């Protein structure tokens, strides 16, 4: 046996004995409980598996160098989602004004009174008060030649719900990344000030989502509420906080399986 072989054998033996040696007792039951809960949440909160590559986790953080960009992107997306939801949802004028029947002479390109146009979503309001886009009285006229794509209120609501779902998914993805980083801090008994700032951003977005239609789904609402509770604790944690304060947060994370539930609730890539 050459010196190299002998050294390799010794290294192998030493590494097997010493390198990151797992504990003798493996916490099977505790992990199973978390897995069971994760699967349960997945059934109610996740739709489909899409064409996601087998065995990969979401590439959320992979390509962007700093989490700050994600915080900004998530906030923008959330705001966009809410704005889209407001535009596509039923407007107050639609709800209050009595519906009028348009004369048949409007032809095939007229906007049906009970439809919402994607291209000009507020045109239905103009139709209600009998004013066209240019302010002149009379039946509303379409711009452009071809028939406009029309959606029923149900379709509009569907798009709105999807927009909220996208915003919620983006938010949960970011929250998962933040909590993972925070857990790393926690296990080493330290607290980074950036985590706290990150937590504040997430907290405000969580509150926005809780007040939006995204929270209509009971499972998601419960998750957002638990997340909000954890985030409040993290934000209030000072660098000089006691070990007990940290343990309380750790307990909240562990007992409610917030991190596991977040990971489960994040839709897979491609869905």
């Amino acid at each position: 046996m050459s010196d190299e072989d002998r050294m390799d054998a010794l290294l192998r033996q030493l590494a097997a004995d010493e390198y990151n040696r797992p504990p003798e007792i493996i916490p099977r039951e505790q992990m199973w409980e978390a897995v069971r809960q994760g699967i349960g949440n997945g059934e109610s909160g996740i739709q489909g598996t899409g064409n996601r590559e087998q065995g990969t986790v979401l590439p959320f953080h992979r390509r962007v160098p700093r989490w700050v960009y994600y915080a900004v992107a998530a906030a923008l997306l959330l705001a966009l989602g809410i704005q889209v939801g407001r535009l596509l949802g039923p407007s107050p004028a639609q709800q209050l004004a009595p519906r009028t029947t348009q004369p048949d002479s409007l032809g095939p390109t007229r906007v049906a009174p009970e439809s919402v146009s994607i291209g000009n979503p507020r045109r239905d309001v103009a139709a209600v008060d009998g004013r066209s886009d240019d302010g002149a009285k009379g039946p509303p006229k379409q711009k452009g030649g071809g028939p406009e794509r029309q959606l029923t209120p149900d379709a509009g609501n569907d798009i709105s719900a999807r927009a909220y779902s996208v915003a919620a998914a983006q938010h949960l993805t970011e929250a998962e990344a933040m909590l993972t980083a925070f857990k790393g801090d926690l296990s080493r008994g330290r607290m980074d000030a950036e985590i706290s700032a990150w937590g504040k951003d997430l907290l405000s977005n969580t509150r926005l989502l809780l007040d939006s239609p995204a929270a209509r789904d009971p499972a998601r609402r419960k998750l957002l509420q638990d997340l909000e509770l954890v985030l409040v604790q993290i934000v209030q944690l000072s660098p000089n906080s006691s070990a007990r304060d940290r343990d309380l947060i750790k307990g909240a994370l562990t007992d409610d399986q917030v991190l596991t539930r977040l990971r489960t609730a994040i839709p897979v890539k491609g869905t």
Partner: protein
Amino acid sequence: MLYDQHVDRVYRLAFRLAGEDELARDFTQETFIRAFQRLKDFRSESSFGTWIHTIATSVSLNGLRKVKKFRTRESSLDDALTVGAVSRRAEPDLKERLKQAIDNLPEGYRTVFVMHDVEGYTHEEIAAALGVQPGTSKAQLFRARAKLREALADFAGEWVS
């Protein structure tokens, strides 16, 4: 039950790669959650064990990249404050040096070394889990060992005597 059959090996691998109980638990749990959710996608072309180890390595390595990126950012600040103290430290012992050397291996080398030399996976199992050829696994193990020998060369005299 599938969970009972595979959980120990998955957890051990996750722990060897992560070095922390909490991370190892997280990775193990996530592995099984993903596996059970996508059980219908599992085709019997490979064994369930191979399939779940594919998920486990992917989950663990991606999770570690996430954690490492965050810690690197933090430690660069710490290093700036303690740069003078490091050189005066006593020489770490062999175990510590070995751990550092393994930790410092490139990710691919380290994964193969841990799976093969530490946890006893075959090159075929490693290749299936990492989506590479068995020859690639062998080559990476060879290079990993060479790098470790190089990093621990100053101990070589004591070992081979």
